[in-house]
Structure formats: structure tokens, C-alpha cells
């Protein structure tokens, strides 16, 4: 167990380095000279050359990567071309907003998915099962940015119940847990929750059905255990897998919320990325992707370790 723990943590290091390399290459594959990602296009020629030397951009690629990595490890993600501020200062606030949206959405999706999947798996072949499967397929097939628009049309334009944009009254971005702010969270969170709901429903339905078909359930029933008692046994067996799926979904939502954030003008990493793409602000693009991908790598690691700890049947060595 301890051996597995150490090995799994060690294995995450080359992955993190390789992910860093892919992010480093993003600026290299971008059309034009990578120096354009550091200095504004109207900078005088001698300044450009000086910056090129300072940043080591006249050196071979592997050395450039090393220099870039040293900076990143020290928390220096460069400066935004558009605002001139350090990338990290813009990014930290945006990450907090995206994380909040993603956590609320994945909790919502997970709760609904477990409910639907649990019912479907228990009452296999019934009307509930067919309905849950239908909802799950629709959930994974819907273009969520479009669903967001439809919800805005219904609840903001037609019914005028909920605000369509932003994260607070008057475009303020300081979050507070009161209704003025929470009402801005409702539509984006529901929109984003649809995908994990579909995936968790499918997974939980499969897991529950598989466990119910195992012999120990028949044995429990034969022993005269009540339905609730059997249910608790099934939940205990299903929980580690379901939690693992949910953990990964949180990571997908962190990275995948860009489209939904664009629809609702939610001031998170998605909006930041979107603006960076339009202004061709490569340092912001690179920094945001790097941080989100690293978050995903770390989350993968945590999910693996927690799953191993929770489920003694997984013997990893």
C-alpha cells in the first residue's frame, strides 16, 4: 500500500512535466515568432532583441523549456499582453470563481445522477429505468452551451425569474453567499451539471446492477435481511467507484466550463481564456491552460489514492 502510494505520486511527476511541456509548446505552435507572446507588436527592434536575449529565446528549445519551467515553478507565469498585469493576478480570482461553479455543478450532477442511476439500477427494466436512461443519454448528448441559451430564454427572457449574466448585481465580481449573488449561480450551475448527471447516472446504474447480480446479495436476501439492509451493503460496494467518477467529473468541469462561462459571462477561467484567445494574449492562454491542466493532474492523483484507500479490494502494488 505504502509502496503503491509512493509509486503513484512519483508517477505523477513525469506526467506533470510532460503536461508543462505541452503548455510550453502551445506558444511555439502559435503562428508567428514566440517573442510576440512577450512584447507588444509595436515594440522597437532593439528592445525586441534585448528581451529575446533576456528570456533566452535565442537559445535552443530544450534550454528555453528549462528556463520557462524555472520561472513557472517559482509562480511566475509571465505578463498579460493586453493588461500588462501579471498573469497570476488575473488568474487567481478567475480560478476561485470557476472552482465554485464547478463544485456546485458537480455536487448537483452527482446527487441527481446517483438518485437516477440508483433507481434505474435497482428497478431494472421498469419505466423509471427507461426514463433515467433517456435522461442520461440526453444529458451527455446535449450541447451544453445551447442548453444554457435555452435556459436563459425560458427563465430570464420569458419568465424573468433569474439573471442571465455575470456573477453579481451590477456586474460586481465580489462574491457573497446571499440571494443577490446565488441567483446568478443557478442557471450556469444547472447547465454545467447536466453532463456529470448523465455520466454518473450511467455509471451508477451499471455498478448497482452488477452488484445486485452478485451472489452475496442473494445470500443476504436468503439470510432474511431487509431491503434497507441490502441497500446499505450495495451502497458500500458502489461508493468507491462512484466517487472516483465524480472526482474526475469535477476536473472535466473545471476545464470544460469555458463554453458555459462564455454563455453566462461568468467571470471565471473560461471567460479569461475566451478573452485571451480574442486578443491573442498568449501568456494568459498558456498560464490558464497550464494551471487548469495541473489541477486535473493533481485531482487524478487524489482520486486514485482515495479510491485505493476506500476500496480494500483494489490491491495495487
Amino acid at each position, binding site marked *: 500500500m505504502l509502496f503503491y502510494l509512493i509509486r503513484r505520486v512519483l508517477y505523477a511527476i*513525469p*506526467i*506533470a512535466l*510532460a*503536461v508543462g511541456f*505541452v*503548455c510550453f509548446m*502551445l*506558444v511555439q*505552435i*502559435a*503562428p508567428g515568432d514566440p517573442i510576440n507572446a512577450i512584447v507588444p507588436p509595436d515594440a522597437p527592434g532593439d528592445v525586441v532583441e534585448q528581451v529575446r536575449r533576456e528570456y533566452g529565446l535565442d537559445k535552443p528549445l530544450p534550454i528555453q523549456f528549462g528556463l520557462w519551467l524555472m520561472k513557472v515553478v517559482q509562480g511566475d507565469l509571465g505578463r498579460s499582453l493586453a493588461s500588462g498585469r501579471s498573469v497570476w493576478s488575473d488568474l487567481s480570482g478567475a480560478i476561485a470563481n470557476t472552482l465554485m461553479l464547478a463544485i456546485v455543478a458537480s455536487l448537483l450532477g452527482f446527487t441527481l445522477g446517483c438518485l437516477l442511476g440508483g433507481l434505474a439500477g435497482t428497478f431494472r*427494466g421498469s419505466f423509471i429505468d427507461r426514463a433515467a*436512461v433517456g435522461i442520461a*443519454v*440526453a444529458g*451527455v*448528448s*446535449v*450541447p*451544453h*452551451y*445551447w*442548453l444554457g*441559451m*435555452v435556459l*436563459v*430564454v425560458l427563465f430570464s*427572457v*420569458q419568465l424573468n425569474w433569474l439573471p442571465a449574466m455575470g456573477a453579481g448585481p451590477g456586474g460586481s465580481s465580489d462574491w457573497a453567499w446571499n440571494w443577490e449573488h446565488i441567483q446568478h449561480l443557478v442557471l450556469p450551475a444547472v447547465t454545467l451539471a447536466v453532463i456529470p448527471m448523465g455520466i454518473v447516472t*450511467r455509471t451508477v446504474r*451499471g455498478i448497482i*446492477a*452488477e452488484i445486485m*447480480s452478485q451472489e452475496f446479495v442473494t445470500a443476504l436476501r436468503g439470510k432474511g435481511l431487509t431491503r434497507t439492509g441490502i441497500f446499505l451493503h450495495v451502497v458500500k460496494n458502489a461508493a468507491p467507484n462512484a466517487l472516483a467518477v465524480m472526482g474526475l467529473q469535477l*476536473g*472535466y468541469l*473545471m*476545464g*470544460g466550463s*469555458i*463554453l458555459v462561462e*462564455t*454563455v453566462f459571462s461568468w467571470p471565471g477561467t473560461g471567460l479569461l*481564456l*475566451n478573452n*485571451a*484567445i*480574442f486578443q*491573442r494574449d*498568449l501568456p494568459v*492562454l498558456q498560464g490558464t*491552460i497550464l494551471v*487548469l*491542466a495541473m489541477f*486535473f*493532474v493533481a485531482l*487524478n492523483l487524489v482520486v486514485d489514492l482515495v479510491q485505493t484507500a476506500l476500496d480494500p479490494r483494489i490491491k495495487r502494488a
Partner: protein
Amino acid sequence: MSTTTPTAAEAELAVQAKQAVVKSQGYWAGVWKRLRRDPLTIACALVLLLMFLAIVFAPLLAPHDPYQGSMIRRLRPIGTPNYPLGTDELGRDILTRLLYGGRLSWFIGITPVALAFVIGTVLGVLAGFAGGKVNMAIMRTTDVFYAFPSVLLAVAISGALGAGIVNAILALTLVFIPPIIRVAESVTTGVRNLDFVDAARASGASAFTIVRVHVLGNVLGPIFVYATSLISVCMILASGLSFLGLGTKPPEPEWGLMLNTLRTAIYVQPWVAVLPGACIFVTSICFNLLSDGLRQAMDVKG
């Protein structure tokens, strides 16, 4: 989604039965027989066929020119005479643009999966069959791309390369190669250890012959079914890139881009504005259900 989850012993039997079936004459006849008894899959296939015909024959079916707008009839509602689905923010006929738009949406939704299917199968079969260091190199590289959520990777690559159809297709192809490699590698590894491969090797067949004759026939089916399940995701992602302004450029009609430009019109003509997204949704859900139906009919696990 299989209806019953078999135990390990049953699964083993099913695998053996499948291998017997694959080689017999009646495999495709059996698949077709099972498909015919599956009304939902047939219905989805028909909807997709109708959509495909509609976008192929768009010039014959479309009542107007997809680029020609008019400032005096902007954002008309659904049911306007001559403009059955209304007009967009530049006064162009929505029905016409939806018909033409399907061409690009389908193209950038299917091409990346097709390209990834070819490249991913080659690399995955190579990794699975060669094993050892080759397997190690290919699979560890795959792990790196798995460390990115798919939407983020697509946005990152096409964001760095800049807007355009070719860049979007390139980005999406890169997104879908790793999952196909994983599936191809795992089925190939499964087939490689079966007795008939050993028998072929013992009879002196070269590695190339074994792959061509014995391996490909057994692994292409499962990989293909898996690839069809990716089309739905790819459609959503491709239109999503256009929605962000990263795929097609205006005035080209494309469903995701139409959704983007109509976004400002949701307060004027809300139901017209959401129509392109409904097209994406219908296409995506039909491909998803068709893939599920194929998986069951072709008796592929997983």
C-alpha cells in the same frame, strides 16, 4: 449499455462465441437481424439519413441564398411567409442557413473522428501487438494527453493555432487520437494472447501477416463502434469551437457559429436564436443512440 452484465465466466464464453461468429459467414446477417428488431436505432439511422440527404441537396431544397441578407427583414419570427423559420440578425433565411450550415457542422464533426480512427488504430494496434518498449513509448505519450480535459485541450490547441476550419479539425483530431489508441491497444493485447495467434506464429506467418489476417479482423469492430460513440462528442466540441469563434469564420453558415451570432438576438427572437443548437442536439443524440444500438447488435463489450 448492455442489458445484462455478465459474470466473468459468461463474458469469457461470450468472447469465445464472438470469435466463432466473427469467422462464420453469418456475422453481418446476425448483426442486421438484431438491428432490425431495434426500432430506436433504426429511427435514429433514418433521422440521420434524412438530415444527410437534406444537407447534401441543400442547393435544391433551400428557398433562399445563404449569404444574401436584407436590412429591412432582420430577425423575423418563426412562421413568417416565405421565411418559415424566420430570419437572422442580417436578414438571411434561417431555414436556408440551417440546411447549408449542416454541411460544415457534419464535416468538422465527423472528419476528426475518422482521422483519429485511422491514426489511433495504427498506433494502438502497433502498441498492443509489439508490446515492450514500443508499447511503453506510445502508451505513456497517450497518458500525457489524458491529463488534459478534452474541451480544454481542443480550446488550447485551436486557440494557439488561431481560428479556422483546418486548425479546428487538427485540434479535434489530436483530442480523439489518445482514447482510440487506448481502446485499440487493449483489444489488440486481448487478441494477441489467444491461441490462434500462437498457432499462426508457429506455422511461420510473419508479424505483418498475423496482424493483417488475424488481428485486424478481430479488433476493427470494437474500435469502430467506439469511434462512432465519439462522433456525438466531436459534433458538440466542433460546434462549440465555432461558438467560441475558433472554428468557422463568418459569413460561412455553420450551426455553432450561427448560435454564436444569434446569441445577441435572444431578447428579440428567442426561439429563432436557439434553432441551430437544436440541430446540433438532434444530430448528437441520434449518433449517440445509433452507436449504442450498433454496440449491442455487433455484440461488442464495454
